[in-house]
């Protein structure tokens, strides 16, 4: 068991004929993900590793029933691709693309809410349920099946922590990268709630960073509604204020969003916060 995706998820890849999209679609299929096809406007009728390519999401959804879409197209086209998926009836869209303008994301998010579509990302590594399926770019080698849910704003930091757990024999129910942009489709609280309700998740690791207040909201949720133990790490204690640290959302602005403020809130809520991400497995065992 898991959240969001499992071995039965039927996945379409938007941008499957692109270099990145194709590369990761193959790795996803090797992992066992049920990729049913892909969409690239102008390439409908072609085939990709035995999977049909469609011009539009409408045609793809009509021909191949699918419940998840992975958006791998460049930033200028990604907002439109997410809306196309939502309009075609896809209920879970995972968007890897970085550098989508925030104004576009705010409109896309409103559109997804109207259509009842959940968006994960953008600017995220995707979702992986170890041993079952992965949708996105999380490397297969970083995780074993298990009972620790992971939710993170980051990519490689997540791999680092997943790998440290794996080396200690700790596995994961589902790993969710929610993305490092200021405006994202799914927040820490949304995922914590799913883990809290997932019978196969026993513990949770939360990997946050400076900027915004999503970790503060997560602390409130942990305090009021979570029964499962949470271990956390917040990146950016050494980051200077007013500077954007790589991720568009990682900026301490007007004194808001600092690592210390988030660490204090999480500790006050009963989460165990690591000063060093390599301590996370200790905090979970």
């Amino acid at each position: 068991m898991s959240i969001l995706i499992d071995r039965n998820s039927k996945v379409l890849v938007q941008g499957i004929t692109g270099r990145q999209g194709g590369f990761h679609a193959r790795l996803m299929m090797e992992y066992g993900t049920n990729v049913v096809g892909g969409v690239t406007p102008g390439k409908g009728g072609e085939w990709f590793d035995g999977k049909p390519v469609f011009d539009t999401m409408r045609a793809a959804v009509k021909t191949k029933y699918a419940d998840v879409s992975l958006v791998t197209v460049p930033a200028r086209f990604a907002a439109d691709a997410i809306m196309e998926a939502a309009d075609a009836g896809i209920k879970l869209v995972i968007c890897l693309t970085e550098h989508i303008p925030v104004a576009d994301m705010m409109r896309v998010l409103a559109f997804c809410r109207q259509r009842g579509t959940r968006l994960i990302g953008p600017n995220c590594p995707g979702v992986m349920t170890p041993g079952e399926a992965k949708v996105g770019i999380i490397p297969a080698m970083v995780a074993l099946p298990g009972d620790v849910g992971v939710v993170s704003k980051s990519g490689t930091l997540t791999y680092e922590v997943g790998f440290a757990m794996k080396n200690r024999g700790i596995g994961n129910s589902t790993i969710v990268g929610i993305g490092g942009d200021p405006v994202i489709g799914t927040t820490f609280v949304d995922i914590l709630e799913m883990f809290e309700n997932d019978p196969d998740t026993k513990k949770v690791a939360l990997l946050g960073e400076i900027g915004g207040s999503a970790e503060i909201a997560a602390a409130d949720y942990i305090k009021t509604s979570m029964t499962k133990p949470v271990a956390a790490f917040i990146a950016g204690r050494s980051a200077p204020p007013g500077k954007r640290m790589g991720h568009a959302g990682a900026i301490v602005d007007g004194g808001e969003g600092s690592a210390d403020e988030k660490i204090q809130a999480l500790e006050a809520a009963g989460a165990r916060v690591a000063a060093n991400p390599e301590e996370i497995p200790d905090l979970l065992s």
Partner: protein
Amino acid sequence: MKLHEYQSKALFQEYGIPIPQGRVAETSREAGAIAAELGGTVVVKAQVHVGGRGKAGGVKVARDAAAAERHAQAILGMNIKGLTVEKVLIDEAADIQQEIYLAITNDRSAGQPLLMTSMQGGMDIEELNRTRPDAIIREHIDPILGLQPYQMTYIASAMRLPRAHWRSFLKILSGLYACYNKSDAELAEINPLVITGAGALLAVDGKVIIDDNALYRQPALTAQRDSSDEPESERLAREAGITYIKLEGQIGCMVNGAGLAMTTMDMTKLYGEAHGIGPANFLDIGGGATPEQVATALSIILSDANVKAVLFNIFGGITRCDEVARGILTAYNAVQPEVPMVIRLQGTNAAEGKKIISEAQLPHLISAETLTEAAQRAVAAVQESA
């Protein structure tokens, strides 16, 4: 991308928002000439991308052209929080009866634009939020529909703006929203918006920040970029497609991924802080970096004279560590670093990567297994160099 005050106000004017008469000057002589042309009392204002310039002496009132020239002379070249003033704005002084705060920004948690306004203008919004949170009127804007007339009436009413000013205020609200929306701004702020003795509304100070990810479709605004306060090394990195931010410490960091890059900095601080040692930079080399990019990144890190050791922390997921190791050797040979380099490779093909590094038998190369060990070795290397 931040716009200067004079650029922000010129943009406001394009959207029908009234601003004071004024022009920007780069020399005191020019400043005097503008003041003479405007006549009467003027304000000389430093144009730098930093808050608190008033307190730092970067804003002065001048009764005549000679005084304006004197003030400009003092302000131009002044150092405000590490930035040199290269331009001053000469504005006619406004007859201020009331100061209003007005801004539209992106509310990250709501995923919607947020309009904030207050009759307690003049001070910055963080201070206002701390001291008089009840004095701020907040209204979310539907990103698909935009700001609606009923919302504007609600705002004017809720803030208790005297009715005589409603018509001009509503025009400014809709102008500011159009400016925010069409410019892909993440912040469009007027502070203060002044009610003058004659009963007119005037945007006396302004600040606009444009979303960097939208610059590709904002050529006119992109052309206004002022890189003068951007360190040379950051500019070179930006042009090479590498995210680099210069910091004050001694350990240069080269990492793949922004979250891990921040974490690596944090680790050098965690183990080095007690000895006065910390990160020299943030650097995300990204996924699938070529040996050439690694070499460019390494030269940028080493261009900082404070750097006494370099820490490579690479988690190979899709990127393979053996490829990264070859990239590091190529970069090493191209740059010939003279400071110790701690290399930590983890993930896909890590063993092969480590073998390549150790077989190269290069001086200054130190290998580490874990992130903790890597950070501790980098701190030790800096201590040894002292």
